[in-house]
């Protein structure tokens, strides 16, 4: 039982990283109806961007900002020049998934080709440890949790208080209706991918900060928990993604501590497959029946 408290602590950290990532993932889905299976690999690319900056002398937190910017631009470029082009041509849903998987293969292996099959880490220290009633966090980890909370707050404010946020929600719900109300959906989509790309970058760096070393497959290995969190909460629903992230983050770490470490991955897999087969719309959403890609 006294293992449970630290496990919850680990769970909160994992949940934080998952939260940032899953909200980004679900945001991309909400405006373009695409499950971007290259998301994990874009996270890795961002982690490498931060690595390059970091090893050139930049402080890791500043490098995270750089990674966020890189992720933002990279994501917009990929959507505009690859995904959107296929969508405009009328590629169907599973055709799009093949496109995103091909993208994933390309990104992952380009990273491998550039950086070689070895392990990397950042020049940073975790900082002093703090004890919160049995849960032990390093300063870095607390920072990650703080960043997650701040990011979620920012997304919430953006979505509910700004015109842009309202435009994004309108585009997500009904693109053609949004267009006829005068919303420039193309630009809204660009912004949504910019924001979600930034979240992707932040999550990538946070993931690496939490796992000490990384390689070209680190991000891809995190993809299943991300998708699980997004789909569990209801794909396309940012608040659902937050809920899903919390659930999966906590459940994985508790299972890893209480049952066995190899069960950490299994939990996310099991939840994802069960949700897909039993309640594909997740907790909050109504999506799941065939709805073709938004143009």
């Amino acid at each position, binding site marked *: 039982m006294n293992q449970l408290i630290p496990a919850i602590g680990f769970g909160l950290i994992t949940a934080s990283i998952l939260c940032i990532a899953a909200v980004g993932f679900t945001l991309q889905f909400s405006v373009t109806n695409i*499950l971007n*299976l290259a998301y994990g690999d874009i996270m890795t690319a961002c982690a490498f961007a931060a690595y390059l900056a970091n090893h050139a002398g930049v402080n890791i937190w500043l490098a995270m900002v750089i990674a966020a910017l890189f992720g933002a631009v990279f994501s917009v470029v990929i959507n505009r020049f*690859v995904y959107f*082009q*296929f969508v405009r*041509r009328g*590629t*169907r*849903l*599973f*055709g*799009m*998934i*093949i*496109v995103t*998987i*091909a*993208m*994933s*293969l*390309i990104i*992952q*292996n*380009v990273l*491998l*080709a550039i950086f*070689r*099959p070895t392990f990397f880490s950042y020049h940073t220290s975790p900082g002093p440890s703090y004890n919160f009633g049995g849960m032990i966090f390093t300063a870095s980890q607390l920072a990650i949790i703080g960043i997650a909370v701040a990011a979620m707050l920012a997304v919430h404010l953006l979505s509910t208080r700004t015109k842009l946020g309202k435009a994004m929600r309108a585009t997500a719900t009904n693109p053609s209706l949004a267009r006829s109300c005068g919303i420039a959906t193309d630009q809204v989509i660009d912004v949504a991918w910019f924001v979600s790309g930034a979240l992707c970058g932040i999550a990538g760096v946070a993931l690496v900060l939490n796992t000490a070393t990384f390689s070209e497959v680190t991000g891809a290995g995190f993809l*299943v928990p991300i*998708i699980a969190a997004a789909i569990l909460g209801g794909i396309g629903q940012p608040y659902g993604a937050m809920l899903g992230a919390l659930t999966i983050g906590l459940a994985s770490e508790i299972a890893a501590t209480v049952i066995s470490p*190899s069960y950490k*991955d*299994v939990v996310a*897999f099991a939840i*994802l*497959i069960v949700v*897909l*087969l039993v309640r*594909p719309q997740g907790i909050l959403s109504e999506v*799941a*029946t*065939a*709805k073709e890609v938004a143009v």
Partner: protein
Amino acid sequence: MSDQTQFYLSTLLIYLFIDIIGVLGLNLQFGVAGIINFAYIVFVAVGAYTAAVLSLGPDYPGNFQHYVFGANLPFPLPIVAAGVASGLLSLVVGVISLRRLRSDYQAMVMLVLSLIATLVATNATGLVNGPAGLATVPQPLYDWLGLAPLDYQWAYAGWCAVLTAVIFLFVRGITNSPLGRSLRAMRDNDRAAAALGKNVTAMRLLIFVVGGAIAGISGAVFVEFIQAWSPGSWLYPETFVFLAAILVGGAANNWGVMLGTLLVPVGFLEATRFLPQVFYNGFIEAMQWVCVGLLILVFLWFRPGGLIPERAGRYKPRAEAPSGTSE
């Protein structure tokens, strides 16, 4: 021709036939019937593992590898059993996971299953020896034939050729028949097919099982040649090499996908093997995967029908001229 060249060529030929068998099965599922099976490689693996554990002798304590069964069965029983095992697994998986889902969700279900299968095989060490996999799988009829290694390879290639021909005829029997037509209709619009009286659930399951069995046979013949099999041999991207062969060659066209197999898994991937190792060991492999991804994108964009596109049915023309026209 030197012995070394002959060894290489015969190996290449064997790989070609085995890949063709695999691709024909996936083409039946995906190209003809429209079933999105991103876990196809798992069924190849199940066939390989089944053939391996049935050909190997019994496990014993102190053995360097641990596995189930170990029945020491003679050729061709392990291959038959492999087809049956993969077919049965396809039935179970199909019943559970082929649903009325949006097609990208369906794709994800299969992909996740593929990942789960890898997890299970890697962690359940007593099953098929976990991450190290199985080795020393006996080659069929090796002792009985008593051939020199090179001659055995050519004989094996001949055996693969025969098997490929049989499976090609079997698959073609489906695609060129009314069943093939109904499958393609189901692929194009399953709601409309159901509204015309086609039991799409049953058809889908049937083809999923048949394709799965073919996958299993492909895996069995493969493992009996290379004599080893581990989780590293069947990671999820392997399905996409088959997919690339189908997209490049021509989905739903049996000749097309055979051409695609010649070009992609065999031609392209083998040819690049001869490039000198630049930068570091493994750079070429990484670039190969980049190219597989690019090939998929390029063909999906420029020529989604593939090099030899699907052939719609042609029937004997009428004797007399038809009447009138509308619009």
